[in-house]
């Protein structure tokens, strides 16, 4: 508990664990607030990370908390620049784990091209948990207008890779199921900036996180009041994730990712956009999974329709409640 007192022990913790990894000119000034340069339109976001287990195949809470905030900024077409982080450590948190988490944050921030410019640590009673909040600022280039209601009839829907990996990796670890599924947590700034610098007029970007692909697409179809048609056999799912979900009665369409995006682009840019995503880091399994249509009747405004492998149609809604295992 002493580490959260604000006194010498706090200073030791900050110096020993955080400064060593997060060293940069702005942070090392140790001021109450970071002053950063910039005179463009900015994007801001914040997110809190409470995942258990703290470390999982393919990543940890440190990598996750940088990716989550970086990706949120990217989804508005922003170039992520600065990040702040707030740690809430429960009493008994393992220092070695914390060290590794902080190193992951630093490594991931470097990969994503962002600077960690401010931070805070609190220690509370508890059972050794580590919780992290990150906030981020990004710069939005001129003439970029990417938002969820911008989909237009005729647009194509691209997903940047296999769905459900992160959720399946976390669940496997929690349930002590041995497999080689790894989390896809990854920063997507390179993918997004490649799209923008190639002048693809991207209408919508959204990262596929909690609630999974179906929830994200349903939110987008409702936002635009258009009808989204997607095709089951075109949606990329890793075979192992598919069987894992099959065994547990889970649906990959509702399983979360932490390094995948949905891009909605005009039809004439479809193959160029797909190519750019596929050749970006973390995008090799990308595919065009469907299209945006003008609703043919009132009830199809805002509908998300999955065309199944046998030619059936299924109306998808947002995830209700938790992602559930089968009990029968």
């Amino acid at each position, binding site marked *: 508990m002493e580490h959260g007192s604000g006194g010498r022990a706090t200073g030791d913790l900050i110096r020993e664990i955080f400064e060593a990894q997060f060293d940069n000119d702005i942070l090392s000034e140790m001021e109450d607030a970071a002053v950063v340069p910039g005179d463009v339109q900015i994007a801001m976001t914040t997110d809190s990370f409470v995942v258990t287990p703290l470390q999982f195949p393919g990543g940890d809470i440190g990598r996750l908390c940088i990716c989550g905030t970086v990706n949120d900024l990217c989804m508005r077409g922003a170039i992520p620049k600065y990040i702040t982080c707030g740690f809430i450590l429960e009493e008994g948190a393992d220092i070695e784990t914390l060290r590794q988490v902080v190193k992951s944050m630093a490594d991931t921030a470097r990969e994503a091209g962002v600077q960690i410019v401010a931070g805070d640590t609190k220690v509370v009673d508890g059972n050794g948990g580590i919780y992290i909040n990150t906030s981020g600022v990004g710069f939005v280039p001129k003439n970029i207008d990417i938002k969820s209601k911008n989909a237009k009839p005729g647009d194509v829907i691209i997903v940047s890779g296999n769905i459900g990996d992160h959720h399946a990796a976390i669940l496997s670890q929690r349930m002590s199921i041995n497999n080689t599924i790894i989390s896809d947590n990854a920063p997507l700034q390179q993918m997004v900036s490649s799209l923008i610098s190639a002048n693809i007029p991207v209408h919508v970007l959204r990262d596929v996180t909690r609630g999974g692909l179906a929830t994200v697409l349903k939110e987008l179809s409702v936002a635009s009041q258009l009808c989204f048609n997607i095709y089951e056999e075109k949606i990329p799912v890793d075979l192992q994730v598919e069987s894992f979900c099959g065994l547990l009665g889970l649906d990959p369409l509702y399983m979360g990712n932490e390094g995948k995006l949905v891009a909605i682009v005009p039809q004439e840019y479809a193959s160029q956009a797909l190519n750019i995503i596929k050749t970006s880091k973390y995008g090799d399994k990308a595919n065009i999974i469907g299209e945006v249509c003008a609703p043919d009747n009132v009830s199809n405004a805002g509908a998300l329709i999955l065309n199944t492998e046998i030619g059936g149609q299924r109306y998808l809604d947002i995830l209700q*409640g938790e992602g559930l295992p089968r009990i029968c």
Partner: protein
Amino acid sequence: MTQIPELVDYLKNYDGPAIRLMEVCGSHTHAIAKHGIRNLLSDKIELLSGPGCPVCVTPTSYIDRLIELSFQENTTVVTFGDLLRVPGAKESLNTAKGRGGSVEMVYSPMDVLKLAADNKYRIYVFAAVGFETTAPVYTLLLDQAILQGLDNIKLLTAIKTMPGAISYLCDNGAKISGFIAPGHVSAVTGSNYFNNLAAKYQIPFAVSGFGAKELIVAIYGLIQMVLAGDNSVKNFYTSVVEQENNPIIEGKLNKYFEKADVTWRGMGLIPESGLLLRQEYKQFDAGSRGLDVDNKMNNACRCGEILMAKVKPVECPLFGKICKPSSPQGACMVSEEGSCFNYYLSQN
């Protein structure tokens, strides 16, 4: 060899006598909705959802008892996620948790072992809901609880068995031409489990898997049986289901559980339609006997008739109005396996 698209064409264009098929497994209800099968069938073929979703058939007094336990000193209720939002007489476990009830969600009953071992002074009550399929897992949990000396694990059971419910439906005038028999249950019990029912009620049974193609094949096969008057049990899920039961599982079930008359939500007490812990293991029972009261939160809810396929979800006055997945008034709108939930999704 007939191909799937040909079977789909047949089912789309079927123009023979009207046929009513019932699936009695919640996972089938879910799979039929998931694969969009209902809108591939001609108007002459009706698929009805029977009482096969475990949380849908659990009476309100069971939920109320869990809520009561969650407020009991030093006690935590441990449950699968889909029970959390099921309404009891007044509220759901989720609401109770919000008021300070101790409720934990797990993905596997075996997770209770770790909880109980980490805190031996706290009682962990697992909400053991399910059918023949889930019951074997509870026997494994009991095996381990005994082996590890964890006497702070208890079960509040609501375990149902299929034949009692199917008999009840047939005895009470449900007009059904054929049953799509539950694939998971049959994997445990063997397909012969349904032979007596088929003979007694002169109704065909088709055991089916859960994939789109498997369901199409089984539905096609069942229709051929109906048309031919072949009132037997046919297994269309041979990759998993055998004719005979699994003797190891049967032995385990008989060790811990005995047949009992239990109450089904909206249907009442059905003789020998469930399993309760035997007297010898009553120390593991958190009070599962006599949970027969079934007071719906909203009296207009027609769950019972829907479970018996007497009315369709759309015929319930609450359906789609105040009863939606986001504000369920009855259990059938809560579960992914519930008929109202799946009807709602296929319409919206």
